[in-house]
């Protein structure tokens, strides 16, 4: 009896109440294809290593704005997760919009992130001699490609990638973010002491360690630690014209606003590069650009945070 009452109070009642939370502004139900992709995600237990909840604290800043109650309206079964062996995916559609990257990574994560321990999902792909019409083969690096033919995604893989692309946090108004943050952890030691990403690079000079760390966190998944990119998938930065140009305006512009369907070094790339204007500060972007301009034998002229700010204000 006692237990029944407590189960009611702590399990069922909050369940009833919270099941009624209305969707937040901009939170939409999934399309049929995306919903199918979510089923593939659940069936293969992706949720055991990837969370889908951004907590209002410093550690979660790279993953997006703090999650709000209205974000979960259409999320049944829930996928908040209990372990973060891999990164949070709440906002992955914004953070990694390139489906080309997602396909290569799903086929074998180590093809793009050598240190990754995620399983290979090559069984969600088929190797064929000629790709069927309407399907683009996955541009795998030679070390991971099959000996013969090309690799194309199965309908399951296509649905899964469509689902991942749909994971975008709709923006909250400033007031709502304020409420979410107020609950939280502004007193957190990590938040107040300032993590390295917020280190005072803004004060002036280029900080190589900082630049390298930011590049690893934001850029190397596609452009690779070697700066060489992946042939046919992601352009190299090593020896690139824009990166080595004296006038850095174009370089800054691309990092701020992203790039799509571009010709780089005379080669066309189908992928999408995300914009970083919304997630990185001027100082962080200057650090990344200076890193790119000085690494791998590059010798572009360094830029300052002020130049980034100037370019940002043009829009």
């Amino acid at each position, binding site marked *: 009896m*006692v237990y029944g009452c407590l189960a009611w109070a702590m399990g069922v009642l909050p369940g009833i109440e919270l099941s009624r939370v209305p969707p937040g502004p901009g939170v939409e139900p999934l399309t049929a294809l995306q919903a199918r992709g979510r089923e593939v995600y659940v069936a293969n237990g992706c949720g*055991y290593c990837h969370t889908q*909840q951004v907590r209002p604290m410093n*550690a979660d800043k790279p993953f997006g704005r703090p999650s709000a109650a209205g974000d979960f309206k259409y999320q049944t*079964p829930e996928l908040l997760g*209990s372990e973060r062996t891999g990164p949070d995916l709440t906002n992955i559609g914004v953070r990694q919009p390139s489906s080309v990257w997602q396909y290569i990574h799903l086929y074998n994560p180590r093809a793009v992130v050598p240190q990754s*321990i995620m399983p290979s999902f090559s069984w969600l792909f088929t190797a064929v001699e000629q790709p069927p019409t309407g399907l683009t083969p996955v541009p795998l690096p030679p070390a991971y490609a099959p000996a013969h033919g090309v690799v194309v995604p199965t309908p399951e893989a296509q649905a899964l990638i469509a689902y991942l692309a749909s994971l975008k946090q709709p923006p909250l108004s400033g007031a709502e973010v304020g409420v979410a943050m107020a609950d939280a*952890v502004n007193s957190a030691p990590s938040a107040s002491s300032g993590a390295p*990403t*917020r280190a005072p690079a803004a004060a002036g000079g280029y900080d190589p360690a900082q630049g390298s760390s930011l590049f690893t966190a934001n850029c190397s998944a596609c452009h690779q630690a070697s700066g060489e990119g992946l042939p046919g998938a992601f352009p190299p930065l090593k020896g690139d014209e824009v990166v080595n140009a004296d006038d850095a305006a174009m370089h800054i512009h691309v990092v701020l606003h992203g790039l799509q369907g571009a010709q780089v070094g005379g080669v066309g790339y189908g992928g999408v590069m995300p914009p970083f204007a919304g997630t990185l500060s001027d100082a962080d972007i200057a650090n990344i650009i200076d890193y790119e301009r000085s690494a791998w034998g590059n010798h572009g002229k360094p830029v300052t945070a002020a130049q980034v700010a100037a370019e940002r204000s043009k829009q």
Partner: protein
Amino acid sequence: MRTVFSAYVISATLWLLFGTGVGLLVALKFWLPDFGAGPWLTLGRLRPIHTNSVFYGFASIALVGLGYYVAARSSGTKLYSAALAWIGLGLFNVAAVAGTVALDIGYNNGDLEYREWPWPIRLIFLAALVVTAWNLIGTVARRRSEDVYLSNWYIIGGTLWTCIIAVVAILPWYQYGLGQVAVSGYYMHNAVGIWFTPLALGVTYYTLPKLLNRPIYSYALGILVFWTNLLFYPIIGSHHFLFSPLPWWLQTIAIVFSVAMLVPVWGGSSNFLLTMRGSTHDVIHSYPLLFIFVGVMSYLLGSTEGTLEALRSLQQVWHLTNVTVGHSHLTMYGIIAFMIWGGTYALLPMSTGRQADRWALALHFWAATVGILIYVISLTIGGTIQGIDWSHGMPFIQSVVDMQTYYIWRGIGGLLMFLSHVIFAWNVWRMCYGPAAAAMPLNTLRATGAVA
């Protein structure tokens, strides 16, 4: 099968071997991610197979078997119905087999911790629980004494409450979006602390006095622990979702009662330790008592760690890291599995009149103890480093790289644990089918060191 009790133990042992074999494979995949590719062996399907088969195959079946024996013996009567016990065993096994197959073909209820089995399969498990509860109550109702012995409070209480948990988890109407998150928080903690903990404690309240041949230190303290556990436990589940969009008050209440859990935890473990006090010699020379001793120490340390983990300041560093994985093994393995083994090694020979070899008991004990220590220590250190990496804003992949060493150590601990289960299986075989020890009374068993 000699008796229904030994059938439960044998069945549980097979699930232990299977479930921890899968666990070992999962641990290996953190180190060699390309080992065993393909849909049937992918990590995301094996992980719930591991947790569900050790929970609902091994631990549930073992504790129900032990619970039946304790309920009948402490009531001075026979089991109410051996047929019902066999039916229950069949249902538990059907559920666990069906659940394993369903998870492996990717048919699940969502990545919802410990309730991944599709609902029709969880309904079979619920039926097994109801049969068990009915049988236990029937048995205790036939007792010869006036009072219901403390163990039976725990065992029957735990079984009845778990029926409620199972129903709450299955019904769908209040489980949409964030509502389901609230139910998940409630469920995942209660399935552990309201099912396994009371049964393991109940069995130990019988086994420990029996082995030491003296009454429990304080019967009243045992009752206090029973009621506080009942009152506090259902409320703490939301501490699995601190800093989530669940209402802040729900999270805060969960933290307050997580601290209150220190009352039953410290009360329960000190009751056991005070019962053992002055019997150091007996404990050192009896492997069943050593198993129980490690179980009690894990209860004290693991559950206190649980309280600490629920505090917001520590959650900031530890939540979502491998510290949680270490904690769940310290508790489910350190407490539950060790108490099951202590109970089995003490009670099964009394039922079958056959004993395991002392050297094999020693091997099981030391491999399991050293294994779980390596496991928990490596994941606790590694998980803390993960959390610090994140809060310092390092690139995420750095936390993956930093965990590598600890994943390998975890695998080594896990290998020792698995080997100890192979020895346990051998010991169970000897206790069920080995040479009969000429019907020895308990005192003689004690003298030979086989029991205590």
